[in-house]
């Protein structure tokens, strides 16, 4: 079996995505900690159960906390700051995840032609997913 090449530092896709995967992985922890701490400061402890708090932590969308005892979601839970947080999570999450899918698929597909096809397909999927998710965030 052919092993993956070690990415050499420089402006190439493999190395940049290697760095991006690590950095966005750390960013998820930061974003989740900001989300859960802000929720607890806004009184989540007495207003929602663990599942609702976890949904909010993964993705701070106001629809995720509708099923709780919050009197008015528009007061603190639904504003531009959380929309920016959602865009960041979508961008980091979509890129991190689809790059991971590319890495896994390229381990099983060795022909250069099909590797290019996979790269293109995943690129199209990436653009599509981010556009759809942006629609959802702006519409919710």
């Amino acid at each position, binding site marked *: *079996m*052919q092993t993956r090449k070690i990415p050499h530092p420089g402006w190439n896709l493999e190395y940049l995505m290697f760095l991006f995967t*690590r950095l966005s*992985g*750390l960013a*998820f*922890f930061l974003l989740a900690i900001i989300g859960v701490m802000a929720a607890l400061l806004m009184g989540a402890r007495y207003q929602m*159960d*663990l*599942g609702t708090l*976890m949904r909010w932590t*993964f993705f701070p969308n106001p*629809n995720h906390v509708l099923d709780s005892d919050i009197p008015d979601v528009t007061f603190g839970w639904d504003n531009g700051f959380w929309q920016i947080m959602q865009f960041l999570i979508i961008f980091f*999450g979509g890129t991190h*995840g*689809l790059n*991971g*899918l590319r890495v*896994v698929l390229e381990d099983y597909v*060795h*022909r*250069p032609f099909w590797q290019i096809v996979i790269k293109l397909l995943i690129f199209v999927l990436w653009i599509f*997913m981010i556009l*759809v*998710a942006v*629609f*959802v965030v702006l*519409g*919710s």
Partner: protein
Amino acid sequence: MTLDRKVSFFEGLRYKGGGPMLAWILHRITGLGMIVFVSLHVISSFFTQEMGSDWAIAINTVYESIYFQFFIVFCVLYHGINGIRIIILDLWPRMLQYQKEMTWLQWLVFVPIYGLTIFIMIQKLITGG
């Protein structure tokens, strides 16, 4: 480029990679699990929101099932904790000689968090709270 691996599935299972290999394969499985969940959820919420489609609402029942939720909590927690181990090992490659110990430490961190989460989920399921 096209090398045949000449390794059957069962030979692959017998490969004695130990804990770190299990971590590698679980990292892939949990990552793919999250891709499936997030893709389904994004598509379903988009079509529910824009068109109120019945089939989009039907997709919700897939991941609202308790078994899928056990699985997705496993995916998120395992992938996150294993990811921290990978980042630490990449930043300080000299730690690689303690790879096995770190994999054990990782399970030691993972099991209580996952166990407690599952305990609370089952408790809620039984009491219906």
